[in-house]
């Protein structure tokens, strides 16, 4: 076979999550009252822009979740094919050069030379101590000192032209589509887009897509020639590490939700609906759990997992499988510590909903508890679930960084912003300082969390009945 697919646990859960999102979209499209809040969301400019940025992050994360192992070269005829222990993803293939262009050690962003002096042997046999040239970064330049500025400008212009062409094409397609859909001429559609005379803020949408395209084009043309964010201690491209960390951040943010949702939904609604001793037991459970400081509980649980993994090393065939199990476990334990808040909210709301007339009517008709919960209670508390999911997302991404820094987060072999920051701590003490991996982690995390925060604000505005 050409490759051997690898299905990690978190991959499977991610696909499950995507399937359920697709199912939700399909349901929403059929029901006007469910569609309305989303329409409201589409009309807000910050909502559209942040959703697009989030989508870009999600796309990277999804491509990074298609894992496989490449075969090693065959030993003789008819021998069994062995596969490389290295687990790659489709995303790794897409950014090929970024992954493969590994230098010796630190190099600054856009540098052509290494960051540390080394003894270089000259052709005549003499030795000098100087900054050696990089193997990949700026390797096409003959005299980096004189040529680099010009080369960077030319490359940037080229990237800009690509982006402009792509953007213009996209605008044209949008105008055509709008013209057909609304039954107006292309010119009228263009005027509508330009002056923002539609309920959907097309201008913001196009501007955000334009910026994303520009970033992608620039990153593509530059990353072939240079290390945009420099390289780290073992010479890996920091830009690549930051991109790979996206998956980790997203996984923590989304899978945790997937883990906590069944607990919170089931227990919260049960406590509110059945009341009595069920309520007492559930309340006792979540009070007990929430009175334990979260970080400590997580730390304790991760320590225990570490011991388990050290004692059962034969269970994991690759490093990736090991790191993946730890990530999954982290999501589970984060989910267990964070379902209590939503559960409490749902209990309160269910207490209110069950007193409403239509539910009392249903009870009088002899409809079973299960049907009442599924048909009447659940749809009426869904907005709380949605709002609290998006609100929690950014907090979880930030928590990952802190936990990895404390040493109880994701596996040290897994790329994550927390691990990058943790590594940067030692680099801060270097003289001169190595600042770029910190900067890369900061920029990526900031953009993701900021857009998640903006998006969740808009979701709350659109879905919370009290705001209207």
């Amino acid at each position, binding site marked *: 076979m050409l490759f051997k697919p690898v299905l990690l646990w978190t991959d499977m859960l991610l696909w499950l999550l995507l399937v359920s999102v697709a199912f939700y979209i399909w349901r929403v499209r059929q029901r006007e009252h469910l569609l309305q809040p989303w329409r409201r969301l589409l009309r807000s400019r910050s909502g559209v822009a942040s959703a697009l940025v989030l989508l870009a992050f999600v796309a990277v994360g999804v491509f990074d979740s298609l894992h496989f192992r490449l075969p090693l070269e065959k030993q003789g005829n008819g021998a069994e094919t062995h596969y490389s222990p290295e687990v790659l993803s489709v995303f790794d293939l897409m950014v090929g050069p970024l992954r493969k262009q590994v230098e010796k050690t630190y190099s600054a962003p856009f540098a052509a030379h290494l960051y540390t002096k080394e003894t270089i042997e000259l052709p005549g046999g003499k030795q000098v101590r100087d900054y050696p040239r990089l193997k990949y970064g700026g390797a096409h330049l003959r005299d980096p000192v004189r040529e680099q500025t010009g080369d960077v400008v030319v490359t940037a212009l080229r990237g800009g032209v690509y982006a402009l062409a792509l953007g213009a094409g996209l605008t044209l397609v949008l105008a055509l589509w709008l013209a057909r859909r609304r039954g107006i001429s292309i010119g009228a559609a263009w005027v509508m887009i330009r002056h923002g005379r539609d309920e959907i803020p097309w201008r913001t949408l196009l501007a955000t897509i334009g910026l994303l395209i520009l970033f992608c084009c620039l990153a593509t043309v530059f990353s072939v020639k240079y290390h945009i964010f420099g390289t780290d201690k073992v010479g890996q491209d920091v830009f690549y590490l930051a991109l790979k960390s996206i998956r980790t951040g997203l996984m923590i943010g989304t899978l945790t939700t997937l883990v906590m949702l069944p607990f919170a939904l089931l227990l919260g609604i049960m406590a509110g609906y059945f009341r009595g001793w069920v309520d007492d037991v559930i309340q*006792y*459970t979540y*009070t*007990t*759990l*929430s*009175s*334990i*400081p979260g*970080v*400590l*509980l997580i*730390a*304790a*649980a991760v*320590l*225990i997992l570490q*011991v*388990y993994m*050290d*004692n059962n090393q034969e269970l994991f065939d690759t490093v990736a499988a090991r790191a993946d199990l730890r990530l999954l476990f982290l999501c589970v334990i984060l989910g267990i510590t964070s379902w209590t808040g939503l559960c409490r909210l749902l209990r309160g709301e269910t207490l209110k909903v069950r007193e409403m007339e239509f539910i009392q009517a249903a009870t009088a008709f002899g409809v079973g508890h299960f049907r009442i919960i599924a048909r009447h209670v659940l749809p009426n508390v869904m907005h709380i679930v949605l709002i609290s999911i998006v609100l929690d997302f*950014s907090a979880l991404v*930030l928590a990952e*960084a*802190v936990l990895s*820094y*404390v*040493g*109880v987060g994701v596996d040290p072999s897994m790329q994550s*912003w927390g691990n990058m*920051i943790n590594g*940067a*701590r030692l680099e*801060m003490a270097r003289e001169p300082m190595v600042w770029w991996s*910190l900067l890369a982690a*900061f920029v990526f*995390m*900031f953009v993701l*969390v*900021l857009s998640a*925060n*903006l998006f969740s*604000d808009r979701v709350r505005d659109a879905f919370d009945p009290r705001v209207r």
Partner: protein
Amino acid sequence: MINYIIRRILYAIPILIGVNLLTFALFFVVNTPDNMARIHLGVKHVTPEAIAKWKHERGYDKPLMWNGAAQGAKQASDTIFFEKSIGMFAFDFGRSDEGRDIAHDIKTRMWPSLAIALPVFVVGLAINITFAMLMAFFRATYIDFSGVVLCVAMMSISGLFYIIGGQYLVSKLLHLTPISGFDTGSSALKFLILPVLIGVIGGIGSGARWYRTIFLEETSRDYVRTARAKGLSELSVLFGHVLKNAMIPILTGAVVVIPLLFMGSLISESFFGIPGLGSYTIDAINAQDFAIVRAMVFLGSVLYIVGLILTDISYTLVDPRIRLE
């Protein structure tokens, strides 16, 4: 009132027993003392005798919850669960796996934690409320809008970056304060300024935004309209009426935290090298010292429950309508 408090304290007991059972299960059932011994001894020194010795020295060689070999009451009391857990209710935390007295460590280390957490809490609360008031005063104007944008941007930055950035800017570039460390007495002040400053700044984003929502919710009430109709100035409406009535939600968030201030902050204490309870816990996590982590988990839950009770009591002080029965 007294009855209510007593009942709340009685309610706390089953919760603490639950916490205790849970942490016990986490630490001793999932992960046997044999495993712990192996970690502490390291790969090279693992022999059955060494494990037995390590366990015996720390009292981990007894049965977990039920001692069938013992007589009478000792069947329950001569076990790991009894010895390691019941003592916690009397705040007797025993010894760490390294052999140190945990209670003594906590007593000495809580002061540096308080020295940072208390100023961060008080100053942070004052600044957040002031900012939120300003935004509420200029609501729906450019000032309010840019304030909210700034808050969202600030709360999107990980706390780690505030610390790293602050250390770099203030200590390394400007040489205003030492990068890290701690001292006793008044000379501790220069070590405290930066962590407190960073703690306050790091909390402004989410804090000010949260209080702003509370104030805006309060300003939409009828009594505010009445006060305005009476001809009161906007300032006296805000400070005289809104702030007073917004105290309930503010207290809900604030009072719960007060007892937890003892625990310090894991992150900033370890970054700034402050010998408080936060860095104590981190060190214990890194050294895999389960006895300390368990003690801290238990202490944390006790303080949280105390915080909840204090919140309820503070309600009655602020709002005479609320009577605790």
